[in-house]
Each structure stands twice: as C-alpha cells, then as structure tokens.
C-alpha cells in the first residue's frame, strides 16, 4: 500500500498517518489529481506487478465514517483486495474505464496550482482569486472545492462541506472512477 495525501504540508498529514506502517507521501501540488484524474478522496487504484492498473479509481474507504457516503463497508473492500492479492481474482467492476478530465477540470487544476503558489508566497488576494476561479471551473471536484477550504480558513467538515456535498449529490454524484451504487 502507498498512501498519498493531497495536502499542503506534512503537519496536516502527520496525525492521520500515525500508526501507518506503509509509505505515506505528500502531494501538495495535487499531481495525482492530474495524472490519475483523482477528483475526490479516498480514491484507491490497484496496480499489478507489471505496472498495469488492475482496478482503476474507486472511492473505497478505510474508516467507517465514510461508509454512509459511499455505501461500501471497509470490510468488503479489504476482502476484495485479499482475493486479488492471494488469488488474482478481480471484482466485476475492475475493467471500468475512468472518464478523462474535461478541459475545464484540467484548467481548474492549473488554477488551483496558481492559488497554492500565491498562498505560499504570502499573496492571499491572488490566492483567493485563483481558488475562486478553480472552483468555478470544476464545482463538483472535491480536490478543488474541498481541498481549498482549509487553505482559506474554512472548516472542510463544516457547513461549506455539507453544502458542497448536497450539490454534488443533486448533480448525480459525479466521480472519476468506478461508480458506487
């Protein structure tokens, strides 16, 4: 297992990574949101010994807190993983083809990058401008909308998140990956 946190600093991640024995990496520029079209977390990708993707992006979770949001228990997923690792058995949805990013979603990621760059340089006004632009380009993308919340002093587990979640559900729960029932 390789954990990659789409977070701004190691300090944000340390508490979550406590007790984890597998590698935990920091992706502050959201490379995986681009390269693997990750649009929300958690997203799990199964990669085979030859570097091929055995099962693409899916919204599996490791904690019960997310069970209500995705409808999959962590135990089911871990059993599926065990079957794959031990016997090479893949679930039915493994051959799902993930939709590519749209031009707006790509631009949103670029705008987000400009936002974090500005923020790191201490230019809050410019950062605000770019966070807003990114959010307009990809309003249903959590790696854009929700990730921006703590970077703008907004609680990502508060009202703003619940509003986003509601809008997302209403939009049909769009996600770049295996759809959840």
């Amino acid at each position: 297992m390789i954990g990659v946190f789409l977070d701004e600093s190691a300090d944000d991640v340390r508490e979550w990574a406590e007790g984890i024995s597998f590698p935990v990496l920091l992706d502050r520029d959201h490379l995986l949101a681009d390269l693997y079209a990750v649009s929300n977390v958690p997203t799990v990708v199964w990669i085979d010994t030859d570097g091929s993707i055995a099962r693409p992006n899916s919204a599996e979770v490791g904690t019960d807190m997310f069970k209500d949001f995705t409808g999959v228990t962590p135990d089911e997923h871990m059993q599926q993983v065990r079957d794959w690792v031990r016997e090479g058995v893949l679930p039915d949805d493994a051959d799902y083809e993930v939709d590519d990013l749209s031009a707006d979603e790509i631009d949103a990621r670029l705008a987000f990058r400009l936002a974090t760059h500005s923020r790191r340089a201490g230019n809050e006004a410019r950062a605000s401008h770019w966070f807003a632009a990114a959010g307009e380009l990809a309003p249903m993308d959590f790696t854009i909308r929700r990730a921006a919340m703590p970077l703008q002093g907004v609680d990502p587990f508060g009202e703003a998140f619940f509003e986003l979640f509601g809008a997302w559900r209403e939009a049909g729960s769009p996600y770049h990956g295996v759809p959840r029932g």
Partner: protein
Amino acid sequence: MPGLNVLTVDAVSEIDAEVVAGRVLTSVAGVSASLGWDLKPEGLCRGDVCVPVRDDAGIVDGDHVDLGGVAELLGMASLLDEEAAVLAISAPAADRRAALKGRVAPDFTLPDLDGNLHSLEEFKDRKRLLIAFASW
C-alpha cells in the same frame, strides 16, 4: 526580459520571459530550463525522443518561443497569472490517457513526511494499492 516563474508537475523554475498579448515568449534556453525539452532543428527533443515541430505551428517568432505553444505540442495545458508573472503547466495528457485508457500506471515521484523522495517505480514487481487521501 524580466523573470517569470514556471510551475510544472516536477519543479518550479524562473526564466527570462516577456508576456505579449497573453502569450509567454522566452528563449530556447528558457524552454529547456522550464520544461526540460530542447528546441532543435529536428524538433522538440528530450533524451532519445524528438517531437517534430511544423513551421506553421506558430511557436517560434525570431528569437522568441511561445512557451504555452510548446507545452501544448507536448500535450500539456497551461494557465498564466500575468499579474504575478507565473505560468502553471499540467502533466502531459498522454500520461493520463495511458492510465485511464491504456491502464498503465504512470510513475510519479513525491516526498514522504520526512522530505525523502519516493517513486511508484520503487515498488515495482509487487501488487500495489495506491490510496489517494487527504486531511480534508
């Protein structure tokens, strides 16, 4: 020419460039320094690979090279913050398509919490579960 910061997936670099009508114009050296690709007579080259550049691609104007145009030829999108003099450039679309359509996991290099770099390739020949997560 004044300095402009270029943000790619790998690095942040500062190059000499001018912004004219929304286009970032730099030198051949600026292209190499920011993108790691060299503009040669045979095309845009990196290592053994050369991408041909058509005369009418419109990316070269005398001594000046349109950096956004070069990025586009390489399948990378770009976005300019003219006020802050920063150009952000995406990963090549081909790498993402290799993942999504070709089902080939693109390699990447990122730091661990102690700042040590690791790549996906480091764990090759093993089944891997790549888990994207966040504190949010």
